[in-house]
């Protein structure tokens, strides 16, 4: 065998290895999803979705958990949406290339890399203790809002940046002010991209357990929250709690709750991907 034959063989071997690596993650994911569905699907029924938690696995349900998750989603959107989009617009449209803008940029990149549990410590001290919100829904939503703020800011900036200069110039030429231009031209044109970013950020927030555990969200909440100041639990915490128990039946419950959580996560991601594709097809500047 000549040298070049050996090299060609190595090349082929790497190709096979490449295919193997590309699919190993997906195969593991598939095994895992099948395992979860096989274990949990029989447990999912109307009672499971509408029952309160219980010390007996067979009677326990996830009503309080998914109600808490829904509350957190709504509150987090209300807080993070205006803040994140506002900051994104400021940085892209108003922020001049000065030291403050530069510092803001580095700072946001840094915040994106802070572990979620650290946001939990921040929320525990600032929202929980200083603002006396304790382990309430509002404290949880504020904490998660800060956590996803960098994601929303970055995607807002990208969406706004994609709107061409000519649109703004046209608006100014008709006598519109800066804010009128942003509100009537830039924002409608970039809204699809902004929305995609927010939904992706929310799908991140839905799966978070660590920061909420730190601020004091409970594992056992025997009622559904009725105001933002109520104590709460969310699906990931319920799953964590059931997974930590030794009895086999609770693992089945955890698998069933995971199915519900994954449906929510995949739904949010699916909507985001759909919006992004639609956006890309529609707009040709």
């Amino acid at each position, binding site marked *: 065998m000549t040298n070049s034959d050996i090299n060609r063989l190595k090349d082929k071997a790497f190709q096979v290895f490449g295919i193997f690596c*590309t699919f190993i*993650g997906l195969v593991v994911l598939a095994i895992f999803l099948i395992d979860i569905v096989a274990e949990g699907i029989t447990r999912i029924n109307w009672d499971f979705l509408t029952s309160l938690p219980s010390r007996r696995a067979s009677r326990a349900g996830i009503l309080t958990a998914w109600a808490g998750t829904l509350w957190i989603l709504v509150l987090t959107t209300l807080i993070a949406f205006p803040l994140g989009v506002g900051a994104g617009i400021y940085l892209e449209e*108003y922020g001049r290339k000065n030291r403050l803008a530069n510092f803001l940029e580095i700072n946001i990149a840094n915040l994106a890399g802070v*572990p979620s549990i*650290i*946001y939990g410590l921040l929320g525990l001290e*600032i929202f929980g203790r200083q603002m006396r919100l304790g382990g309430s829904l509002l404290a949880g939503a504020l904490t998660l809002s800060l956590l996803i703020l960098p994601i929303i800011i970055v995607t807002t900036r990208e969406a706004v940046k994609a709107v061409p200069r000519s649109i703004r110039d046209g608006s100014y030429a008709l006598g519109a002010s800066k804010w009128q231009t942003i509100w009537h031209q830039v924002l409608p044109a970039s809204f699809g991209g902004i929305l995609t970013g927010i939904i992706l950020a929310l799908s991140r927030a839905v799966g978070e*357990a*660590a920061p909420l555990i730190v601020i004091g969200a409970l594992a056992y909440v025997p009622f559904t929250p009725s105001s933002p100041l109520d104590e709460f639990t969310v699906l990931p915490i319920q*799953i964590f709690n059931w997974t930590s128990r030794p009895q086999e039946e609770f693992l089945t419950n955890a698998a069933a709750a995971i199915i519900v959580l994954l449906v929510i996560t995949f739904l949010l991601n699916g909507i985001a991907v759909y919006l992004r594709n639609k956006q890309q097809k529609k707009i040709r500047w």
Partner: protein
Amino acid sequence: MRTSEKIIEGLLWLSAVITILVTVGIIWVLLSESISFFRVVPLSDFLTEKEWTPLFADKKFGIMPLVTGTLLTTGVAIAVALPIGLTIAVYLNEYAHARMKQIVKPMLEVLATIPTVVYGFFALTVVTPFLQKIIPSLAGFNALSAGIVMGIMIIPMISSLSEDAISSVPRSLREAAYGMGSTRLQTAFGVMVPAASSGIVVSVILAISRAVGETMIVAIAAGQQPRLTLNPLVPIETITTYIVQVSMGDVPRGSLEYKTIFAAGITLFVFTFALNNLSFWIKKKYQEKYD
């Protein structure tokens, strides 16, 4: 008209400046609580003591066992994610058709969207029992399966960032390599990967930072026993798990035990902050090499 424009600009400015307040808040909270911790426990004990037992009667406050636990799970995760992620990046760039790349990339991203608590469940109920068949001495809670599962989770992080780095290497370099008679493999590892090395290093640093701060996988599957060891087969405890463990229990606020989570938190923050800024620095320094 002008005043309302100004007010709006002011509000937008405020929402941008809030991000600075968040950083200040994080540093202030971590510092103020840990300073009062370090008044009681000297920093030298914190760094050199070999045991971490703040919740026991005989209290020892050495952070090292939590740090080694964190590094152990992170090490396993990177050992899994780096070879696989980099191979995927090279394969998609040098071998796969553009169409396949288009299909595979979003599929890999799915791995990053799954909540970490779900990965923890997987590590504990599927990976650990499976590994126990191969390694009978493997404990029910261990760094190995938590690390492997975390590695799978961060594959897309390394593969997609490395892929971006490799695909931004100018075509001319690749064509020159082919012109010299190189195979695709020789081109990839002799030319493309070295040329994209700064971007690949950045992806690995960001992946390490992510793994260091990861919480739920290790809290579920790696155990809650602080232990100064590099053996991945026994239960350990990471910094993040310790914070969760204390938060789940009823440690009275303001007590020394309560302050330990902020001391652990600031340790974690220093690690991730250093890693993130190192990655920014590398990116900035080497990014415009080909422009």
